[in-house]
């Protein structure tokens, strides 16, 4: 079975970094609802994350299911590699 290209890991790491920042900012904003600076940063990273997700999925297929990701043809969300196999 062919290996995933090196780029897979780079984009995935970017995605994980974006997710982590979003988690941190969400928790921060829960206790600081009127911090405009953080809200702008949060929205910036939401946009950034959408872009990275689109880039990843265009190359390596859907990340999530039930409408969270577009599907390729044929129906390919079940194809390897799965997250624990990567």
């Amino acid at each position, binding site marked *: 079975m062919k290996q995933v290209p090196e780029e897979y890991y780079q984009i995935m790491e970017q995605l994980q970094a974006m997710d982590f920042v979003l988690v*941190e*900012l969400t928790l921060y904003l829960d206790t600081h609802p009127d911090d405009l600076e953080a809200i702008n940063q949060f929205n910036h990273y939401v946009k950034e994350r959408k872009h990275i997700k689109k880039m990843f999925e265009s190359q390596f297929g859907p990340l999530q299911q039930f409408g969270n990701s577009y599907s390729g043809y044929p129906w390919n969300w079940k194809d390897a590699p799965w997250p624990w196999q990567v």
Partner: protein
Amino acid sequence: MNTHFKTYHPYASPFDPCTPILEKTYSTPPHLYMGFQPPNLPQFTPLEALRAGTLWKDFYDPWYNSLEKAKGGLPT
């Protein structure tokens, strides 16, 4: 470097089977000294934050055991 190390001195009995450890150090997390988090603290870049485990530099709290410290374990 994290300066929130504190020490305590366990009791050493004359009948201890092994040589007693006279001083033990432990690390206290930085958020104890901060209270309510002020806005606009300096931040890591996303990739650094992923490694460091926190987005804000002030909350970065690495723990290095004595072996790692001997090898010069510096925070990334």
